[in-house]
């Protein structure tokens, strides 16, 4: 595991009028490490993800990606730095095929993205990147299916595949297991574990079995603040966490 965090935040805060959704949060993400963020609904986890991906600007605080402050930058600029984000509510291109979803994602990185007179299929490297991403996510055999016709679990896989097609360094996964059955979940957990080896991963999840199966570090958020952060077993054993969250039979 790398020593320096690839992304860290300082006093990250986001307010919506009178409501403080994220308050003075300090988190760091390292290459080769899966850092899980858990907490009850409304704890601010999705808001945190939105702040890191640029979908929301922070009210105050800093977000340092490779030591450069990216707070408030536009989502497309943050994405190009090597940050990939999957959404809690499936956010794919429903009318396109599975392959086209990933090909388009891969295209975002192509220097020749603005060529206007050559057929898109000619750029074989994009298709190859897309196919590789689909292979990794386990969707290779569904490449020609229209995305809208996939099962819910397959759509969640496509969510991840699209991120992977952009060759990110850092992955922000927002509840990738949401709504999945047992077999699909197991497969997704394996995928996340594999990804953790050569990416920095921030994983938001409610599925505790999955979290404790893959996470190398754990942060618990409650009411927008970090309650506890550290090695998973230590956090689990912490009395504060037990009473606030885990101890209530969650």
């Amino acid at each position, binding site marked *: 595991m790398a020593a320096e965090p690839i992304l860290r935040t300082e006093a990250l805060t986001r307010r919506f009028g009178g409501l403080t959704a994220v308050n003075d949060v300090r988190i760091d993400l390292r290459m080769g490490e899966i850092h899980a963020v858990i907490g009850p609904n409304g704890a601010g986890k999705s808001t945190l993800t939105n702040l890191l*991906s*640029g*979908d929301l600007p922070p009210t105050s605080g800093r977000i340092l990606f490779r030591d450069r402050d990216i707070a408030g930058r*536009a*989502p*497309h600029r943050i*994405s*190009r730095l090597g940050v990939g*984000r999957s959404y809690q509510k499936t*956010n*794919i*291109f*429903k*009318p*396109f*095929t599975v*392959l*086209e979803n990933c*090909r*388009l*994602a891969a*295209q*975002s*990185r*192509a220097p*020749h*993205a*603005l*060529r*206007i*007179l*050559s*057929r*898109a299929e000619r*750029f074989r490297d*994009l298709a190859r990147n897309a196919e590789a991403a689909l292979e990794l996510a386990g969707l290779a055999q569904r490449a020609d299916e*229209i995305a*809208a016709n996939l099962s819910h679990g397959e759509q969640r896989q496509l969510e991840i595949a*699209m991120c992977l097609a*952009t060759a990110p360094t850092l992955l922000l996964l927002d509840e990738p297991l949401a709504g999945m059955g047992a077999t699909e979940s197991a497969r997704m957990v394996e995928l996340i574990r594999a990804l953790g080896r050569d990416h920095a991963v921030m994983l938001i999840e409610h599925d505790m079995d999955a979290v404790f199966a893959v996470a190398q570090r754990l942060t618990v958020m409650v009411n927008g603040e970090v309650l506890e952060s550290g090695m998973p077993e230590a956090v689990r054993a912490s009395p504060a966490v037990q009473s606030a969250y885990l101890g209530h039979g969650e």
Partner: protein
Amino acid sequence: MNRRRSDIALAAALLALALFPLAGSTFYLQLVTKIMAMAIFAMSLDLLVGYTGLVSLGHAAFFGIAGYTLALLSPQYEAANLWTTLPAAMAACAMFALVTGALVLRTSGIYFIMVTLAFAQMAYFVFHDTALGGGSDGIYIYVKPEMKLAGRTLLDLGDLGQFYDLVLILMTAVYLFLRRLLGSPFGRALAGIRANEQRMRSLGFPTFRYKLAAYVIAGALAGISGYLAALQFGFVNPEILSWHNSGIVLMMVILGGMGTLHGAIIGAFALVLLQEVLANQAWFGEAAKHWQLAMGVLIVLVALFLPRGLAGLGARPRKGSADGR
């Protein structure tokens, strides 16, 4: 297979159009020339509406700016040069599109519709109320531009048959260009923006720039049609920039079937021919005076019962495809 069949249909249609001057009378020749210019107008709007998902109600601004550019650049009693005035007209449109687009594209939805309308209305008033445009009387183009190469006239644009050929060639060229554009990576990105712009941004696409590029291209292409119309009628006046004109071309696109380029061409033919048919007193007698009523009813029926416009009549039920169409 579907591609091959539609290519054949397209080639057949182009052949029919190319041969039409042999059979048609002067009146119909002029009519079809006008329709083909409108088809270019409609295709350029389809790029915005059908592919990028940007509904503009101010597209007539480009039509008018191009026409006025030709009128203003034409010397009073001599012929202007097509090779300089046509690019100039397109460039004027592209500039207008670049400047207004940079502002207009910050809005979306109905707001976008209204701001495009606003800028078109402002252009209308510039030509209507200031010295630039010659006021509500408009400007006449007394001598048609000439199309020369190395001193020899390529096409005599004052001759109806040859002008018809030029318009047909340009319409075909615009169609092929747009088809190529839409199959390219740029075109796919536009389709992605229409399907889910937020996701495109989070994948790393600077969607604003793509939309602006589409807007400028659409504006420049619309300029071609405005130029040709001004050339054909030898006259421009502020009404060509009116919202009625913007509305009519939008109707053509929707009627023909959005998001299919050939739909725009079909829509242009359908709307103009429909008007000609319904207003034909020889066929409908007194009732022909009220053609607007019949036209309106037909449009209402198409809107209710033909969800994919006229182009959807011949096609299979849509499922979705590799390129999002």
